[in-house]
């Protein structure tokens, strides 16, 4: 798949309380959750972002609570994918299980600045920064996780089995 969008850059250890604060967890309605996506990291994020945009994080993106509301909020807000240096493990599971595309790339994080347009080719495993010839590799996705994505998430994968 090709993902093309504007980058919103965040730092290290973006926790799931920042992605979707617990005060909004009295619902699991994706549209409601989307309204508060990234609110405690950047209160204006939801009003400024456009569908198709890409979130870029540093180390340990999605740490903290296991709330699946976090990837749901990101996906429902219209973010096409998340690229980070590394992901916290429950967020990593959740994203694959519920179908939010996420990618790991270490060198890319240091080179990218907020607002730049990027193209991420998940088949070739390459991120290109728009208007430049700067290219960065993304870490290969384990075959099992690829299968999860191909099947449309964990529940559909199980149903198929």
């Amino acid at each position, binding site marked *: 798949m090709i993902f093309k969008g504007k980058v919103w850059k965040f730092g290290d250890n973006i926790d799931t*309380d920042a992605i979707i604060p617990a*005060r909004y967890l009295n619902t*699991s309605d994706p549209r409601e959750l989307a309204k508060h996506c990234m609110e405690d990291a950047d209160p204006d994020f939801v009003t400024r972002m456009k569908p198709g945009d890409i979130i870029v994080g540093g180390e*340990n993106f999605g740490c903290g609570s296991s709330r*699946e*509301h976090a990837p749901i909020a990101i996906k429902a807000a219209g973010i096409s994918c998340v690229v980070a240096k590394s992901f916290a493990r*429950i967020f990593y599971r959740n994203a694959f299980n519920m179908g939010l595309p996420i990618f790991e790339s270490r060198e890319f994080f240091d080179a990218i600045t907020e607002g730049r347009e990027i193209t991420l080719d998940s088949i070739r495993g390459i991120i290109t920064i728009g208007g430049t010839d700067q290219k960065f590799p993304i870490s290969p996705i384990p075959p099992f996780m690829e299968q999860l994505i191909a099947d449309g998430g964990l529940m559909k994968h199980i149903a198929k089995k």
Partner: protein
Amino acid sequence: MGNTITEKILMAHTDLKEIAPGQLINAHVDIALGNDITAPIAISEFRAAGGKKVFDKDKVALVLDHFTPNKDINSAQQCKTVREFAMEHGVTHFFEGGQVGVEHALLPEKGIVLPGDLIIGADSHTCTYGALGAFATGVGSTDLAAAMLTGELWFKVPSSIKFVVYGKLAKWVSGKDLILSVVGRIGVDGALYQAMEFTGETISNLPMADRLSMANMAIEAGAKNGIFAPDAITEEYVKPRAKRPYKFYASDADAVYADVIEIDASKLEPQVAFPHLPSNVKGVSQAGNVKIDQALIGSCTNGRIEDLRIAAQILKNRKAAPGVRLIVVPATPFIYKQALQEGLLEIFMDAEAVISPPSCGACLGGHLGILAEGEKSVATTNRNFVGRMGHPKSEVYLASPAVAAASAVLGRIASPEEL
């Protein structure tokens, strides 16, 4: 080549004869846990997948502990969804109302989680049960749905970090201080995807309540699970509670570790994690003058009877400082009653504390103790992220019950030694 306790428990829940870190496995689940926040999504996924029956009604636990007593209409609706599902499927371990406690205090107390078990929970602090010598890990709601449907789940076998802790703990230093210092040392992703195995003479002598506090915060270092080899202390805790067989596992002498970290615990003073990361840890003597508006004693980390006894010992014949809201949250109804019978609640009331019903509410900024803009709380909880307990510009300082109680009395972050 030998295996770690984590590898052995995982392997025992598969048909495999060998297992190694990095391997992807499907394993049987002994207990699958959800709460009023995470279970509704799991239930909807379960139904969407055509689920008609949970794989085993005795192996699912549903605990309405987060936004209860129901804080608003939406929360009440979420609880209703879970309640109806529990009734429909005859879920044995369903808790609400006067039976509910903070899940990670409740399940061990009731003997629902046991040594040797493989436990998954749609709550990140499910890792708490590693204190009993179980493999327990937090997952998401879709994972819970899959486990409730099939009784199995996929796992990547983690490599293990062995912590060897030696030395006698000083007065007022607890398991909470140990784990805060470990998270401070290795960082919030210091054990990412890994198992944290706690060993050594200090651990062998550590009471179960302290082990539970430590395993609880393994996730705060990014770990998949925290684990303690079960021993006589485990047996004493588990035996009167268990209603089914359990098994003790131990790491082989030639088990392979990704890292071994030695810790001299004798030099440790009470620890405080400053905003906004659990790894931002200092000794309490280095805290400086941090005035507080609230002190919260409770949670799945430190809401057990042992924690309340320590707090009561400090609060006896003292009062919360003017302007400090002291909130005590016994983690389960049983602990609440014990505290009543032991006279602890009277001590807390005389100290002008608010005694909350068992609930996770205050810890995650749900209800029952929200902070306003600019307010600071010392809390015996496990997370101090931005906005964790309320306004995005409020601050949370993580500490032990002893430090929280002393801080409540002095109105600033303080050591009990200062009283």
